[in-house]
């Protein structure tokens, strides 16, 4: 594997305005990692994600994408980076005034010169991938919460992104759909040769597909550990991390 990290986070402080949620975060993400941001509720997982996807500029520290700092780049570079990312939000964040097909087609219409027919084919394929074939003409308000999530994923992978971000992908999904989503993430990661960053506290997902992770803690206000979650479960020096990953020591 290439030794230069795909993404590196350096001395990062995250928070909103003057309120610091987590400080002094340092970790690397390698290409093709399935990277989990782990931690209890309210420890700042989503906030960290928002700093990584260009929504909130950090007050201190930096996030480098193959050496490029998003927040200090000019608009063109930022746009190029954004086009290579696919992001799914907690509740799908579908545009409610557009059908599913229009939602998924939007990034392709704006950023590629594919013909309408090619876009329609691609949309059908992406929706089939997430198990929503045949739902092209539906509006988001006609679908369930789990379907919103999957449709959001279809939109995120519309441009075959190199970097995929998920905010709580399996929260609110039944175990089967959740497993399917995990498989889908692994497949897409392999097929598109992309790197995946997932905010989650779903232990089965973390332990089955995660290859790298960072563990945030609300009390310490910083990261406790990072690395392969399976390794952390057995060998983390932090009691709290082992407790979390083994569901406080109970048999899973």
């Amino acid at each position: 594997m290439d030794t230069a990290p795909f993404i590196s986070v350096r001395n990062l402080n995250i928070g909103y305005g003057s309120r610091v949620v987590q400080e002094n975060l340092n970790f690397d993400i390698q290409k093709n990692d399935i990277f989990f941001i782990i931690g209890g509720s309210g420890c700042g997982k989503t906030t960290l994600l928002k700093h990584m996807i260009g929504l909130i500029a950090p007050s201190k520290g930096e996030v480098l994408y193959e050496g490029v700092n998003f927040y200090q780049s000019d608009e063109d570079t930022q746009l190029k980076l954004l086009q290579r990312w696919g992001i799914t939000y907690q509740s799908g964040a579908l545009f409610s005034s557009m059908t599913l097909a229009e939602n998924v087609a939007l990034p392709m219409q704006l950023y590629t010169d594919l013909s309408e027919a090619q876009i329609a084919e691609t949309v059908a394929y992406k929706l089939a991938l997430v198990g929503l074939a045949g739902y092209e003409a539906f509006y988001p308000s006609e679908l369930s919460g789990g379907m919103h999530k999957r449709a959001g994923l279809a939109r995120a992978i519309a441009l075959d992104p190199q970097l995929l971000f998920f905010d709580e992908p399996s929260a609110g999904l039944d175990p089967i759909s959740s497993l399917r989503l995990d498989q889908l993430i692994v497949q897409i990661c392999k097929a598109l040769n992309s790197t995946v960053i997932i905010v989650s506290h779903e232990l089965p997902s973390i332990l089955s597909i995660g290859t790298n992770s960072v563990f945030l803690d609300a009390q310490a206000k910083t990261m406790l550990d990072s690395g392969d979650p399976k390794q952390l479960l057995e060998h983390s020096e932090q009691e709290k991390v082992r407790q979390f990953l083994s569901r406080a020591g109970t048999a899973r």
Partner: protein
Amino acid sequence: MLTNNHFIHIVQEDALLYRVEQDADQTSARCTLYLAGTWRLGNTPATTELIAALPGQCNTIIVNTKELEAWDSSLAITLLQLSRQCEQQNTQLDLQQTPDGLQQLLNLATSIPPYQSSKTNDTTSLWKTLLRVVHSVQHGAETTFAFIGEVTLALGAWFRGNAKTRRQDILFFIEQSGPRALAIVTLIALLVGMILAYLGSVQLRQLGAQVYVADLVAIGMVREMGALMTAVIMAGRTGAAYAAQLGTMQVNEEIDALKTMGISTMEFLVLPRLIALVLVMPLLCIYADVIGIIGGAIVATSMDVNFLQYILQTQGAVDWVDITTGLIKSIFFGILIALAGCQAGIYCGRNSDAVGMAATNAVVRAIVYLVVADAAFNILYDKMGI
């Protein structure tokens, strides 16, 4: 019919993306689809073209990707369509010789069969459209009356002292719709007063009766423009805000949460807004009257009317009956604006589009209500001789 063993199809001049070879053995009816080169989105053959290139009598198609260099979603898209086509024609598609990743992606894409939409396209005959319009107008009128009824009941409960209306909500909305609207009301009322004065002075100068500009402005502001212009401002400002607030609450399921807590949305959400507007509107109306008269004075004094003269003339022109007629109007206008805004918000749909539509609805409806009500009041006052 193929007499040749090899059937080669060239897609692009620079690169061969696929070719089809039919087995020499005619009885087995198998053919192999060789995929080659680099498959990138936007740079691939149309699927229909590829399907047309396949011999029709095949019952097994073997896909071979030995010569494939790189691929992205475009390959999966093509193969997904091919597999759907094969399914329809009972042809077997053999993907054993393709990359694992591709096979798994296709498995994912085909594991859940396409949803058969039960949506039927409505036939849009003129008659049906007309019927639908009539129905929606009827439905709209019904909901409006139902809404007014519910608000009246809630108001009754409030007067009896057992409504779940919080006093701090009423105060909050008074603050929002009163003091915070002063700046815009000042500007508009001042300008309306000046416009009235200009309009009057041009006509009255011909008769040498410029001093009666004061009467015109005073009566015009107090009886009509003060109440109406304030109401129009509040419809755009507060009515739209009410619709957007309640509409967003509907989208966020906050209104559902209130209902399941057993809290009446009428008492908890609509009443504070309605009461606040009814209390604030007359005050804003009086304020607008005064500012309008000042506006008139500014214009009149610049056109050879003495300021003192103007004030005295105004005092003589307006009596308490005039002021009361304006105030009564403004109270009713307040009720109408709150009703239009809250109704649009409460019955808002559940997406971002619907919130915008609710706000538009609130303003349009409020202005229609205002103008109709104003005309009705003027006819009424005329019949009463006041």
